[in-house]
C-alpha cells in the first residue's frame, strides 16, 4: 500500500512538472529556444499569488486569475523585449540562450530586491477533505494537481489542434518562413505561444504553492530545470510527451525519496534523462527527424 501511496504522490508532483514542461515544450517547438527564464516565471506567478492573497488580502479566485493573467502578459513582454530582436534577425541560437539566462538572472534578482531573499510562507489555499480509497489516502493537493493538469492538457490539446491560432502555431513551428508566406502573422503567433506557456506556468505556480506552502526568489531554478528535463524526456515539442515526462519524473522522484535516499533524487532525475537521450534522443513521444545533406 505504501508503494501505491508513493506513486500517487509522485503523480501529484509530476503534474506540476508537467504543467511547467508544457511551456518549455511549446516554446521550444516554435522557436527552438530552451527558455531558461521559464522557471522564473513560476516564481513570478507564486509571488503574485502571495501579494494578492496576503498583502492585499483579496479572495483566492482573484489571486489565481491575477497570477495567470500577470504571467501571461509577462511572457509576452519578455518575448517582445528580450527575444524578439534576435528572432527577427535570425541570430545564432546560442545568443538567444544566453539572453534567456540573462532574463532568468534579472527576474531572480529583481524579486530578491523587491521581496527580500528569505522564504515567505503561503497561507492554506484550497482545502477539502482527502479522498479515502480503502487503505489508500489521497491528499487534497495531490488530487487537485492531477485533476487540474489533466484538464489543462486536454484544453491545450484542443487549442492547438482545433482552433485557428493553434493551426497557426503548428504551421509556424513546422516552417516559419512558409507560414509567413501563407499569410500567418508569425510574430503574433510566437508571442501568443510565450503567453500561453507562461500562463500555464502560473497555474503550475498556484498548484506548487498549494502543495509546498513556501516561496523564495530562487525557487524557479531547480523547478524549471526539472520541468525542462520532463519536457525532453517526453519528447520536446509534443504536448502529451510533456505530460508523460512530468508524470514519470514525479513518480521516479517520489520512489527515490521513499526507497533510496532523498539526497540522490536529483542524480536519479538526471540519470533518467541521460539514459533516455542516449537510447532515444528525441524523447519518448518525439518525432524522429533525419538530417539530410
Amino acid at each position, binding site marked *: 500500500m505504501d508503494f501505491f501511496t508513493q506513486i500517487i504522490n509522485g503523480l501529484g508532483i509530476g503534474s506540476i512538472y508537467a504543467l511547467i514542461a508544457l511551456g518549455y515544450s511549446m516554446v521550444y517547438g516554435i522557436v527552438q529556444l530552451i527558455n531558461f527564464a521559464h522557471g522564473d516565471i513560476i516564481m513570478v506567478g507564486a509571488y503574485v499569488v502571495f501579494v494578492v492573497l496576503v498583502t492585499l488580502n483579496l479572495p483566492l479566485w482573484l489571486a489565481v486569475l491575477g497570477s495567470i493573467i500577470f504571467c501571461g502578459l509577462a511572457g509576452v513582454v519578455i518575448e517582445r523585449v528580450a527575444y524578439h530582436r534576435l528572432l527577427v*534577425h535570425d541570430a545564432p541560437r546560442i545568443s538567444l540562450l*544566453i*539572453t534567456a539566462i540573462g532574463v532568468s*538572472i534579472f527576474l531572480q534578482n529583481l524579486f530578491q*530586491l523587491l521581496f527580500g531573499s528569505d522564504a515567505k510562507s503561503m497561507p492554506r489555499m484550497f482545502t477539502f477533505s482527502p479522498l479515502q480509497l480503502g487503505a489508500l489516502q489521497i491528499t487534497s493537493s495531490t488530487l487537485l494537481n492531477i485533476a487540474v493538469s489533466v484538464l489543462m492538457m486536454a484544453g491545450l490539446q484542443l487549442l492547438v489542434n482545433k482552433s485557428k491560432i493553434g493551426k497557426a502555431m503548428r504551421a509556424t513551428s513546422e516552417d516559419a518562413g512558409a507560414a509567413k508566406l501563407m499569410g500567418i502573422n508569425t510574430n503574433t503567433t510566437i508571442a501568443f505561444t510565450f503567453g500561453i506557456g507562461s500562463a500555464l506556468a502560473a497555474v503550475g505556480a498556484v498548484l506548487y504553492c498549494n502543495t509546498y506552502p513556501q516561496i523564495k526568489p530562487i525557487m524557479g531554478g531547480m523547478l524549471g530545470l526539472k520541468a525542462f528535463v520532463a519536457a525532453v524526456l517526453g519528447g520536446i515539442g509534443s504536448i502529451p510527451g510533456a505530460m508523460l515526462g512530468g508524470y514519470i519524473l514525479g513518480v521516479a522522484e517520489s520512489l527515490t525519496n521513499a526507497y533510496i535516499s532523498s539526497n540522490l533524487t536529483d542524480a536519479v532525475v*538526471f540519470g533518467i*534523462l*541521460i539514459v533516455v*537521450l542516449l537510447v532515444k*534522443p528525441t524523447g519518448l513521444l518525439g518525432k524522429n527527424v533525419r538530417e539530410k545533406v
Partner: protein
Amino acid sequence: MAGMTKKKIISYVTNLAIVLILYFLFYFLIRQGVINSYYSDLINMVCINVILAVSLNMVTGLLGQLVLGHAGFMLVGAYSAALFTLHINLPLVVAFPIGLIIGGLVAALFGMIIGIPALRLRGDYLAIITLGFGEIIRVIANNLTITNGAKGLYGVQSLNSRQNLTPMFTYVFFIAVFVIFINFTFGTSRHGRAVIAIREDEIAAEASGIHTTYYKLLAFVLAAFIAGVAGGLFAHQIGIIDPSKFDFNRSVEILVMVVLGGMGSITGSIIAAVVLTILPEALRDFADYRMLLYSIVLICVMLFRPTGLLGRSEFSLTKFVDKIKSGGAKKKQNVGKEG
C-alpha cells in the same frame, strides 16, 4: 625552427617579452605590497577564469558545441587535486604541481567517459546531456564520504604565505599563458582545422575523410583536462571547496564569458573573463543592484551584438602593427599591392 618564417619568430619573441614584462610587473607590485592580498586574490581568480573560459572556448567556439556542464569537470579536478595534496606526505611545493596534473587527468578521464556517449548528440541535446552529467557529478560529490559530502573539503593549503603572495600568482599566470598559447596553436594546427571543419559542417567534414568522433572527443577531453587543472588551482586558491561552488550557475558563468566575448575568439574569451570577474567586485558598493545590472548588460550585449563582442576575430600584435604600417603606406601609394 625550420618552417618558421622570420615574421613568426619576431611575433613569438615580442609576445613572450610582453608576457614576461607583465609577469614581472605584477610580481614586483605584489612583492612590494603595492597590490594587497585582496587584489592579488582577485588577479588570481581572473587568471583562473581566463583558463576556464579559454578551455570552454575550445568546445563551444572551435567545435561549435554547446556545453552546460563545464563546472562538473572543474569539480572533479578540484577534488582530485585537493585530496591528493591533503593526503600525500610530500611538501606542498612538490605535491601541488603533481596534484594539478592529477586533477587534469582525472577530469580528462571523466571527459572521455562522458564524451563518448554524449558527443553522439549535438546542439541543444548535447547541452542538456552535459547539464545532466554536470548535475550528477555534483550530487554524487555531495553524497560521498571521501569528498566529505556537502560540508566539502577544508584546509586545502595555498602556496602563498602571509609574507609572500607571489607563488600562487606565478602558477596561475603561467598556466593561463600556456593554455592561451596551446589554444592559439591548436586552432591553427591540423587537428584544430579538422575541429573547425566539423563546426562548419559535420556531414561535409565526414565526407572529406575527417574522423569526426575522434576530433570531437579530442577537443572535449582537452577542454576537460584544462578545466580540471583550473579546478585544482581554484581549490588551492580559495582553500575550502564544497559541491555547491560547482553548480549549474558556475557552468553558466563560464559559458557567458565565452559567448559574450565572441564564440571562437580566444581574445574575446580572455577579455570577457577579465571584465566579468572584476565587474561584480567593482560593483560591490551597489551590492543589491549588481546582479541586476549584470543581467541587463548581458541581455543588451546579446541583443545588439548577437555574435559577442569580438565575433570570431582575434587580436594579434603583429597584425595590428602591420595594419598601421600598411595603412600609412597605402596613403602614400594610393593603390595598394594586395595579393
